[in-house]
């Protein structure tokens, strides 16, 4: 799981082009949206594309992202349970 978390942090930074953020800056349980990294709805859509491309998880409803993107830990948990690649 720790490996997936580290992997995810790198991918979030890359996909969302967070130039001034390093993986160490992202706490495992800190919120990704609103406070914390301050991501918005377009970032959520970008993460949905990333999950489909990298882990083969297809979300039908963007509202599902709300729960999944609570933190990197929650996201990693969801991915490990649902990944198809």
């Amino acid at each position, binding site marked *: 799981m720790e490996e997936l978390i580290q992997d995810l942090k790198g991918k979030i930074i890359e996909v969302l082009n967070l130039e001034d953020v390093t993986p160490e800056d992202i706490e495992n349980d800190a919120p990704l949206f609103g406070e914390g990294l301050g991501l918005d709805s*377009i970032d959520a*859509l970008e993460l949905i594309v990333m999950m489909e491309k990298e882990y083969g998880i297809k979300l039908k409803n963007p509202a599902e992202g709300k729960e999944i993107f609570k933190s990197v830990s929650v996201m990693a948990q969801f991915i490990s349970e649902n990944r198809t690649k």
Partner: protein
Amino acid sequence: MNEPILITGMGIVSAIGLDCSETLASLRAGKTGIGALRFLKTDHCEFPVAEVQISTDEMAARLGIPEGQPRTRTQLMGIMALGQALEQAQLTDEDRAQAAFVFATTVGGMDMSEQYYLDFLHNDLHNDYISQHDCGASTEGTADYYGPFASVSTLSTACSSAANAIINGANVLRSGLHEIAVVGGSECLTKFHLNGFNSLMILDEEQCRPFDETRAGLNLGEGAAFLVIETAASAQRRGVKPIAVLEGYGNACDAYHQTASSPDGEGAFLAMKEALTDAGLQPSDINYINAHGTGTPNNDSSESQAMMRLFGDALPPVSSTKSFTGHTTSVSGSIETVICLLALQEQFLPVNLGWKHQMPDGITPVMDPTPQRPLRHVLCNSFGFGGNDSSLVLGHPHNADARLTHSAPSLAGRVGVEAPIFITAATQVSIQEGLSEAWMESPILYEEPYVRSLDVDFKQWLSPGESRRMGKLLKRALATSLTAMKVSGVEHPDAIITGTGLGCIENTEILLMHLCTEGEENCKPTPFMQSTHNTISSLVSIHTHSHGYNATYAHKEASFDCALEDAWMQLQLGRIRTALVGGHDEMTPQYFGLLRKAGYLGQPGQVAGETAVSLMLDAQPSVDALCRLSLVRRCYRPSGETIERIANEIGDVDAIVTPFISKETSPVVDILSRSGRPTLLQYKNIFGESYSAYGLGVYAAAHLLHRQMVPETMLVPGFRCPDQLERLLVMNLSGDKDYTFTLLEKA
């Protein structure tokens, strides 16, 4: 009260019919045009769409367009609908040649670009279509089928484009520039925007259900629709009866998000309110609202809030006819206007198909086509990305008679008595040192055929968080805009108007390349969002919380020109007091290659550059003003007579800033320089060529007048510096047919 604007012709092509009578029959029968994909070639067959039910080949055959001649579906649908409107209004060739043509589209020729993009890059099989790509090409192709118009413009504000084209045309009439305007737009379905909307996760796999609690997104549609609008004096002279009246209009910016509406629908509220005020009506006067009602959870909730706020207990029947036509994106404004006109004519309410479940926080749409009260005034909403919100008030033709007796004297003759406007700031980021006038003393002169912009440090305006998704062009546009606002001391301009030939073409290329090489999976939302032309104007509004008028023109090399003309007209009319006018275009190495093949860039002696330029226009005199903006005139395929008339209006000038490089010139310059022998100046040798380079010409001229100097490099060989610098004419010529003349005078 404003002089009434009469609607004397209309034409429509959509999924529910190829003309007005078919459209009416579908509306009355409750027959939707939304169904399974038939013509668009895409992998996404899961999405229902509303396609015009004839193939592109058949459209071309019906119009007698020979095989082998480049044609795009947008143009063909446009030609079909435009013909109906011209015919109903009984416009003669002479009438048309005196009329402004304002066309709206966002996809332009994308249907062919997405098929041939790899060919464009790697071979010469379909080079004819490269120049068909941009929005302005669709405008010219549609207009030219019927012959010359007096002027042509292209609005591109995503899903409110056609509503804004109607507004622009109405301002043309009110300002007295022309007495007739033909307004509307055309938009075909493309894989590009189907995938773009899919990446935003706002497409429904079932038939859309606007304002229903279970709504899950929109269905895309396509079509074209036009109106002929004219002054009462013109209609009377031509002996034509109005089919309806355009009573008022409003445009406001939500200034909230690039793709989402604010929870309280502030922009929508302001647009509707302005339209009512403009029409001199109360909310209780409105008998029907054709809502934007896309069927996305966000729009319908936000729009409901805005309508409930404005209308309170007096909410008239509301429906979204996107349940019939699908969401026809940039043309929805004129398609739905024609639907409103049919409703006024036939006195019925178009119903809201597919509605079953009440939204807890929303309106209840109309399901019964029989109106409780006669339809006298109806409101039509169109909202676009970036919170570009527009609203039109349309009235029964009987209202015209009442209005005529109350109206102010005719506007004819207003031209020529323009109020002075001041340019209070002019800034640029280009291939010269940015946010500086260092080029006046020591311009950098380039030998290369293609140079990229010299960027400035954007960190002073943008945090890394804010800039994470922005392409370079957006950052440049923000830098010039914010600097112009700071210099002029205007925090919230009444209008933010942008010209851009290609928009953020780098992002368009990313999505096109993805579709061509990786297919239709995993398309990212960011490039799609930024590919929309009005992203630039919206960004400035969002960043500065400016809720005023917002518009974007994408009209080839005359993009900035259209923006300047719009601002100038509205300042003359007193609709606005300040306007931030921008011209923004980038050029990627790939796209430079394509435009070189198309013969536009890479010509001998020419340097292709990039442009970001912002001007602040102000109706208030200011001691710090750079100069006065005294006149803006545009004309398309003008006769010698038209040029003579404009030359007389302009009078003698000390110098003409021409779009030509070095000794090139045109017969028009000869006419303009006949009496006073003005000095000819050039600016593209310094700033390069780009679709919005004209903005840099106006920018440069403003600074020449302010500093009372002419850099040596701007003098066309054979001319010497003028003795005085009081009156400067800045001229543009786009594609050998589209002219702009801007007169600047010493402040």
